[in-house]
């Protein structure tokens, strides 16, 4: 199977007033086309840095990032991003917020087609009827749904999600997990999800990668079967408990709080 995202031996350090801060160390990662990869790791270990490298917003000191086998040299319009903060533009309606990427990526696309595309997505995430509302009139969960629509409106090859559900309450978060599955069934895209919620990672992802503490490298990988067919009940099975236990232990190792057992 072809890899949409491939990260090969990436090492990166930030230059700070106190000298270089090594953030990533010989990190390699591959996401097959159409797959969903979740990355978990201690806070401050370099997860957001990883997303910025894939999006072409930064260049690594060493190593390379490939999208569809081509080295990433700068930003490209086949990427979609969503963050913990939905960063919707307050002066635009929800519909116009979702349309925004199309204004950049497809400037010649007729207004009618743009709107149709945005409406289709908004309906898919349950925001039908809210198209003309302002972001401030929506709840946090609804804003995050709109932000997801904006991230995929231009049919990106890679969707990069940096803790998008992190600020939501537990019930809203579970709703959004299911919305995520629904979107994936309708739209084929390759996803990298950064999260600090282990349940979220095994519910959504095909592969979970645990990063070590800073400077981060891929410390542990876990394949999770089931894909978009998973339901919330699956999180309460012995198999899920076992997986969560293993991941939790790996995080403790990454935090330097547990010994590595053979």
């Amino acid at each position: 199977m072809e890899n949409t995202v491939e990260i090969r031996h990436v090492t990166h350090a930030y230059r700070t007033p106190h000298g270089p801060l090594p953030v990533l160390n010989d990190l390699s990662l591959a996401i097959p086309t159409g797959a969903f990869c979740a990355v978990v790791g201690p806070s401050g270990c370099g997860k957001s840095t990883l997303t910025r490298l894939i999006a072409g917003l930064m260049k690594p000191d060493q190593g390379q990032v490939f999208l569809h086998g081509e080295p990433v040299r700068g930003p490209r319009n086949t990427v979609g991003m969503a963050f913990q903060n939905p960063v919707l533009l307050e002066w635009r309606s929800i519909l116009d917020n979702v349309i925004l990427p199309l204004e950049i990526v497809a400037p010649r696309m007729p207004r009618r087609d743009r709107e149709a595309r945005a409406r289709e997505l908004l309906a898919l995430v349950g925001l039908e009827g809210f198209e003309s509302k302002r972001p401030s009139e929506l709840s946090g969960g609804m804003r995050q749904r709109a932000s997801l629509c904006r991230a995929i409106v231009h049919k990106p090859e890679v969707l990069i999600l940096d803790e998008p559900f992190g600020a939501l309450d537990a019930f809203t978060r579970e709703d959004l997990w299911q919305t995520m599955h629904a979107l994936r069934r309708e739209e084929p895209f390759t996803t990298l999800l950064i999260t600090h919620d282990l349940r979220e990672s095994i519910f959504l992802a095909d592969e979970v990668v645990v990063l070590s503490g800073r400077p981060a490298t891929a410390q542990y990988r876990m394949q999770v079967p089931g894909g978009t067919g998973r339901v919330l009940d699956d999180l309460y099975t012995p198999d899920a408990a076992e997986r969560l236990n293993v991941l939790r232990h790996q995080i403790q190792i990454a935090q330097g709080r547990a010994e590595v057992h053979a």
Partner: protein
Amino acid sequence: MNIRKIAVPLVAIALFLAFWEALVWINGWPRYKMAAPSDLPQAYWRFRWLFLEMGWQTLWRTVAGLILAVIFGTALGVVMGFSRTMRDALYPLLVGFNAIPKATVVPIIALMFVGQHDFNTVLIAFLISFFPIAVSVSIGLSTLEPEYRDILRSLGASKLTIFWKIALPKTLPEFFGALKVAVTLAFIGTNLMEIVSPHGRGLGALFDSGRTNSDYPLMFAVLIALAFLGIVLYYIVVALERIFAGWADRAPG
């Protein structure tokens, strides 16, 4: 509801005028010492053409200074908002310049460009009012959260596109906040220059001629005309703010 909104302020104004009239009447102040509201219509009528002409002078020069301040202040704010180095370099200069009481700059400029009264007045209105605009635009731009930039930058959008679509509209509420301050400042600047420079024009000069003749009705008539102009200018800015940054009204509270 609507009648209340109009009636209440009108009653308040009427009460205020009655109080003023009574004060002058009870104290028996003559006209060379104090004016009563009942003297004002006469003053307006006597100098009606002067009021129109001088009012127009004051108005256009204030607006011209303000337009310059908006152009220059915004440009300066953009430069300072996007470049850390420029911000570090220009900020102390700006603060220092702003700390100079403008009343002391007025006579200097009046002397420097003596005779060029229009130029003087526009210049001082501009100098006194660009500062808040420059500061608010630079703060608005430099505090833009990086994620706002990244949603467009990750799509390969140019800096100019990001500026037009995100940075500029996001700064508009701060810009209009500063413009409300600037409009008041520019108006003060115009009037200072009109009063100070010899053979001046505008409402300030009319005020000055009232002062030399101890014509209190004329002086008060000018004050009220100035207040009226100031209010008109202020509400024009408020109306523009409603149109261009009305969305900020309903920000989550």
